[in-house]
């Protein structure tokens, strides 16, 4: 059975060793000014490549407003 996580309330299939960078790639989130929280805990930018996403995680990828 597929295991899902939530990314900004959208379902996404969980994978083993999935990191935040994996999620950003899958969701095509190319914007750089992001605040990421996994199950309510803030994850620093420097950890995006090695923070392992747990099963059924609730991930928030908050894009900060840009544009003039």
């Amino acid at each position: 059975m597929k295991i899902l996580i939530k990314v900004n309330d959208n379902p996404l299939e969980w994978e083993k060793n999935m990191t935040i960078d994996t999620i950003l790639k899958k969701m095509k989130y190319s914007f750089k000014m992001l605040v990421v929280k996994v199950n309510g805990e803030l994850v620093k930018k420097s950890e995006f490549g090695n923070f392992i996403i747990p099963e059924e995680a609730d991930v928030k990828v908050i894009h900060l407003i840009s544009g003039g």
Partner: protein
Amino acid sequence: MNKYQNPYNPEKIKQAHKLLTEFKYELKPLEKGYANRTLHVHVGNNTIKSKPVTQEMKDVFTGGKGFDLKLLWDAVNKNTKWDSPENEIVIAAGAMGGITQYPGTGKSIVCGISPITEAPVDSNVGGYFGPYLKFSGWDAIEIQGIADKEVIVYIDGDNGIIQIFEAPEEAIDSHLIAEQMCDIFASNEQEKKNITTVSAGTASEHSFYGCLNFSFYDRRRKVARLKQAGRGGLGTLFRKKKIKALVCKFSKLNVNNNNVADLEAIKRISAEYHRELFENDDSQCDMRHVGTAHLVEIMDDYDLLPTHNYKFGKHEKTGKISSPVWREMFTQGIPDGCWYGCTMQCAKCVDGYTLRTGPYKGDIVSIDGPEYETAAAFGANMGIFDPHFIVEANFYCDTYGIDTISFGTAMAFVMECYENGILNKERTGGHELNFGCGEEAMEMLHQMAKGEDFGKTIGLGIHRLKKLFVKEFGADPQFLQDIGMECKGMEYSEYVTKESLAMQGGYGLALKGPQHDEAWLIFMDMVNNQIPTFADKAEALHYFPMFRTWFGLQGLCKLPWNDVEPPDNAETDEPAKVPKHVQNYVDIFNAVTGKNIDKKELILQSERVYNFQRIFNFRMGFGTREYDQIPYRSAGPVTIEEYLSREDRYDNQLRDKWNWDPTGKSVEERHQKTREFREDAYQKLCDAVYTRRGWDNNGVPTIEKIKSLGIDFPEVIEILENYFQGK
């Protein structure tokens, strides 16, 4: 003589000047950010006078756009049209304007009754004019009347002299006249940085969306560069008044021309900000290398880049106009701030560009931009994925005095009309205007400058074009209403809003028309899912427009607020607001003025002016729910082609969001249902926003609200009482 192929002679130009009037005034130091007087220039009867700024005016309207609107309100009446002599161009810097310590403090705010919306419009712009005007002793300038002959208004802030003179010999196109003014009013190369010019251009005379160019002299490039007050047709109004240039000379720039209350505090806050910017910009928005053009590929990635008149949000050729291309074309390593002290330096420039078309073909020029909006409008929206076209059209729009956003959006509309058979070669004077036709689009721009043929027609703007195409060519008015991306008469700026209801409101409920400077909520709404309910969206459509209005009261650029963020921003309660930078603004405002406001008072300052502007709209015959309605292309797929291009998305939404099972239904039925749901949602959004803003369900501020804000002037109350009694 100059560097262009068709040289001019500054001496000859100067000799042709005929002085019409002169006004002398006392030079006085500013007091905590204010000159405490405004300047009134009437080019119709050649009178010039000074008006005092009262404490009440400062308390209620704060400065900048607040002063502009107050002065404009007093100058016009409910019957004033954009071309009435009493209509004004009002320009102000704002209370914080011109401090050179913090980035982005050199903006001018321009207001007037707009040729395209016929209501009050405001537009902000860089360049040196606003700060130099204030340092010359004026918080704002009103220009009223229509001159008999071509004139120049000259403010000599060094000697306290203002002159109006006839100016028959100057060029009209901005890249030339801005340099001519430097040649004439500076006595040597060194002095040119002390000269700043406001001008429009030849196409401003023939279109309704003319822009104003504000210059600053770039000492390294030895060129007068141009920043645009683009929105609302203020260049058209400028040329209607037969003004060729408004010039200010100020040579005494120092670290504290504003005579602020606490300079040390400003220096302290600014030093910290500059450090933050240098450490983080490269890994965040990279504003210092590509400016706002970094957004092109990002918008494409999120399906937000308007393509083919906003039908779609991405295109396979976007790479041809994305930031690596601009990084390559922009000159790097030269300071590029549009006012002193701006280390964000996003005013990028293409240098040594040889023009390929038009009256200046063969001239080698420096071109400011393109910024994101221009690259998106000319590249993706018109379907011309050619950076050279974008740069060349950018140059000509600027020098001809044309708003790149309105031109791009209007051309995209015309192209869709062409592809739908509403237009054809016979109707366009032999021009094929399909998406992607760069040469033809350029020709339309040159025709607009000459005031000829179909190019001039495009200068009418989408609102008037829709009526024309129905009347002349029997076009379907509903289809044109759906695809014509204008609201209140103003063309949309360059974002696809179909998947963000909040941003549909950000555009539709913006006071002056669909410009994104009031609110940019797409990520917050569509990507982050942070504001799911109507109440959440209404709260965002209250806070952000109010917060962003404040920049206009102060003469500030918005980019340094949120295009770089402090490293610990993520850990704050509300990272989207960038709380540390908001606190910087509060602290600097207090350090300039000696006041003691907090974040709440900041919003209140804006709310007063915002509600005043809404009532001003109402006074001029607009400002109600009817005028907040948006074209359907802004809310959803107009055509079946658009529906099918994102069929899964729309089908899923019908099922999950609206509880309507699309299984087995024809595409026409699904398309129609989508429209019903989305249009209904927009009305509910209007209801929620009006309630949050303290307005009635027709979008009119209540008397109670007006009283609570302290803007219950007798004239305002009379207008509202008449309205509420007649309800």
